[in-house]
């Protein structure tokens, strides 16, 4: 039987593929980042929705082949019935393509948690038994030493018949040894094992003489152990999961001893004490509330500065482009379509980056897993488990990465319910709309504005949970699966890892802004700009009046020009394709109190809700970037086409606020839902459900406001 690495079966391509594999939470991503840094991109495992990170570790084999590193999803074992395990199995077998290339990898780097050797070795055994050239990174050696564990990496290498590198991804210890081991293993002409010849079944056989003992660890750069491992022979090779566990225990027992048991006891006691506080039903909850409040306070306070800068840069860039290009369609497209549209989205980049940076720090400390356990109790009545906590939390920044994070939920039906519920959480794109409407409802009353603002978040979260509960009783029927979760050790977070996560997520967001959102912006611009119309007579007259008085009273002339601009803008908006669509659709929104102008605002923001403020500013003021005070004054006093009825009555404003809390209004989210939930039908269900929920909620809000005298 041929092994996957048999050169006779698979002729060597110009790029040698190395895959990175490991249990969840063993520091696999840290090692990918250590090896590739920023030299990576995101692809897909073909036929799946799972992202595949493909990186360039900057290595070349002795035969001149460059090396690419593929980061596989974390899995406890290859034989599990989970999507992550299936992808790992198929990539190792060469049946799933990465970047259109389906072939078994040339080598497998398996990251192992040194403090939890036995369980991690099951995966190592399965991989090596498959005939792959393997390199084991014995990660977290610093923690293993702190626990008083004494791991004989040389003995482990000889038992596994592959290179074993003691290392610590957090500070980069062992990085050079890992790089050398990869090149060495790729230089070997023969595979280390074949499918019929798994690694040694018991440590007692010890097929190769044990090299000198190496402890590795922090401050002691570890020498590389075992260059080209010998071909092992094992007549009684493990075949079942139980066999593998027995084998793993025997190997762990032989390679590892508790040199200083006191240290392990002290470490365990410390973790027990911290857990007693963090998981305490009252104290833990108070800490949870404090951490979450702090998280969002930091995000909103700190992000406001770079958001203002981006806003200023986008506005300035628009002005420069407008002055550099001749008046006309192309200028309108660039300034009003591309720059304004993409700029309105890119402005949220700081909040998204900060959220992922802080979440990465929190996750690294080991706290987020504990928080998931705390929240589990509150999510269960809605059919969800604590696994849904991190996706729902992330959705407060942006639903797109939140929906992608739902892959971590083990129960498929609970995962679907979470995907459907996540967009109800108030994302950053809703903030401009909330600010505008709470400002109109409570002018000069910041406390009441803050209360209403917070209420929007609570309302959104409540609607999301209610929707999840309904989904769990209908389309994703089932009860909340009882939670089981690995609790990582408490440790200081890695700034480097958090910065790389932030960079990765930020780039992903910008990529979407440069593709999907750019396309939407152009389409919306086209709908709102065509068909072109002649300026109204009133505007022409005003311009003539302005020209007549410009010499004697320039201020008056500027006022007249500004009013002419507004009239032209309103006229063009009314006659544009979007304006006509608004007039046609307006009867649907009439019960909510929306006139044609508001209906156009709602329709224009169908693809991206933050566009609402821009659309209203353009329609009512003829400007996209008005000052805040001017915006509130004009919108607050704006009237319907009859010239007397205010557009923003309190009842209408409440109705709009509730509508935007619940409405989907985000095309990229629908695209991601279709991808992650497994079909367009789920995206359509989400759109229909959220739209209906928003309409009914807005109708009820208006009726209550009217009854309270807010007409």
């Amino acid at each position, binding site marked *: 039987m041929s092994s996957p690495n048999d050169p006779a079966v698979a002729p060597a391509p110009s790029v040698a593929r190395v895959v990175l594999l490991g249990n969840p939470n063993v520091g696999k991503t840290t090692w990918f980042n250590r090896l590739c840094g920023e030299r990576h991109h995101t692809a897909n495992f073909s036929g799946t929705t799972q992202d595949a990170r493909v990186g360039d570790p900057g290595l070349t084999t002795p035969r001149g082949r460059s090396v690419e590193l593929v980061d596989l999803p974390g899995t406890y074992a290859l034989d599990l019935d989970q999507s992550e395990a299936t992808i790992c199995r198929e990539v190792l077998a060469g049946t799933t393509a990465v970047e259109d290339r389906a072939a078994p990898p040339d080598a497998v780097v398996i990251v192992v948690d040194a403090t939890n*050797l036995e*369980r991690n070795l099951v995966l190592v055994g399965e991989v090596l038994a498959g005939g792959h050239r393997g390199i084991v990174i014995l990660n977290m050696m610093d923690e293993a030493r702190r626990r008083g564990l004494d791991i004989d990496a040389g003995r482990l290498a000889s038992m596994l018949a592959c290179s074993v590198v003691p290392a610590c991804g957090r500070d980069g210890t062992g990085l050079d040894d890992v790089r050398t081991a990869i090149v060495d293993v790729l230089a070997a002409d023969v595979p280390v094992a074949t499918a019929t010849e798994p690694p040694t079944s018991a440590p007692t056989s010890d097929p190769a003489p044990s090299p000198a003992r190496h402890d590795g660890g922090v401050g002691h750069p570890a020498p590389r152990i075992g260059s080209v491992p010998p071909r092992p022979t094992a007549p009684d090779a493990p075949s079942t999961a139980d066999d593998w566990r027995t084998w*793993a225990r025997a190997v762990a027992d032989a390679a590892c001893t*508790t040199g200083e048991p006191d240290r392990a006891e002290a470490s365990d006691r410390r973790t027990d004490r911290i857990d007693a506080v963090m*998981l305490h039903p009252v104290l833990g909850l108070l800490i949870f509330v404090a951490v979450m409040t702090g998280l969002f306070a930091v995000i909103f306070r700190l992000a406001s500065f770079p958001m203002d800068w981006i806003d200023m840069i986008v506005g300035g860039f628009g002005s420069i482009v407008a002055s550099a290009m001749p008046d006309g369609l192309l200028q309108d497209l660039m300034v009003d379509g591309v720059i304004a549209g993409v700029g309105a989205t890119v402005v949220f980049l700081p909040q998204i980056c900060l959220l992922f940076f802080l979440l990465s720090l929190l996750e690294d400390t080991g706290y987020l897993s504990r928080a998931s356990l705390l929240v589990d109790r509150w999510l269960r009545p809605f059919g969800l488990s604590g696994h849904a906590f991190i996706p729902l939390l992330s959705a407060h920044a942006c639903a797109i990465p939140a929906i992608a994070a739902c892959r971590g939920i083990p129960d498929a039906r609970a995962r679907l319910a979470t995907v459907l519920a996540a967009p109800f959480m108030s994302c950053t794109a809703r903030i401009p709309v909330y600010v505008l409407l709470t400002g109109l409802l409570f002018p000069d009353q910041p406390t009441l504005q803050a209360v209403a603002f917070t209420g929007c978040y609570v309302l959104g979260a409540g609607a999301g949970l209610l929707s999840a509960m309904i989904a769990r009783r209908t389309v994703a029927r089932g009860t909340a699966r009882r939670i089981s979760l690995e609790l990582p050790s408490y440790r200081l977070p890695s700034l480097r890892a958090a910065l790389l996560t932030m960079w990765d997520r930020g780039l992903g967001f910008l990529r979407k802004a440069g593709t999907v959102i750019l396309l939407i912006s152009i389409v919306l611009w086209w709908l709102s700009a065509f068909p072109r119309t002649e300026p109204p007579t009133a505007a022409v007259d005003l311009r003539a009046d302005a020209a007549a008085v410009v010499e004697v009273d320039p201020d008056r002339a500027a006022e007249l020009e500004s009013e002419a601009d507004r009239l032209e803008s309103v006229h063009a908006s009314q006659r544009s394709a979007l304006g006509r669509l608004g007039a046609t659709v307006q009867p649907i929104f009439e019960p909510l109190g929306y006139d044609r102008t508001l209906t156009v605002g709602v329709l224009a923001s169908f693809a991206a809700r933050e566009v609402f403020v821009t659309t209203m500013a353009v329609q009512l003021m003829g400007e996209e970037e008005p000052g805040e005070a001017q915006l509130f004054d004009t919108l607050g006093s704006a009237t319907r086409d009859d010239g007397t009825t205010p557009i923003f009555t309190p009842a209408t404003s409440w109705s709009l606020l509730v509508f935007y809390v619940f409405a989907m209004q985000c095309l990229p989210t629908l695209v991601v839902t279709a991808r992650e939930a497994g079909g367009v039908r789920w995206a359509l269900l989400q759109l229909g459900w959220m739209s209906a929920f928003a309409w009914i909620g807005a109708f009820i809000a208006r009726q209550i406001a009217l009854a309270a005298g807010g007409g």
Partner: protein
Amino acid sequence: MPTSVPAHIADQTSPEDDCVPLTELKPGELGRVRGLRLSEEDAATVRAMGVHDTCDLRICRSARICVVQVLGGGGTACRIALDRDLARDVLVTPMTIGGRPVDVG
């Protein structure tokens, strides 16, 4: 509080018919898993995380969420949180010396 069970304790686990739900053990006590009375899905998940037949556990916390330390070979270990309902379906034999549970907490 050992990170693996010493031989003189491991040899004195209760007979298999003395199995009790994991939830009956108190924090600090040791037990050996004798069976998982779980659905196939749940059993596969907890087994993958290291809680399998014959593995040794130390109870760290016994509340609505039970936290156990799975004691692996060579003194290595990991910490797993289990919903109490789930933990109730994990059957263990308490480790005893002279008929008294071993408490290493």
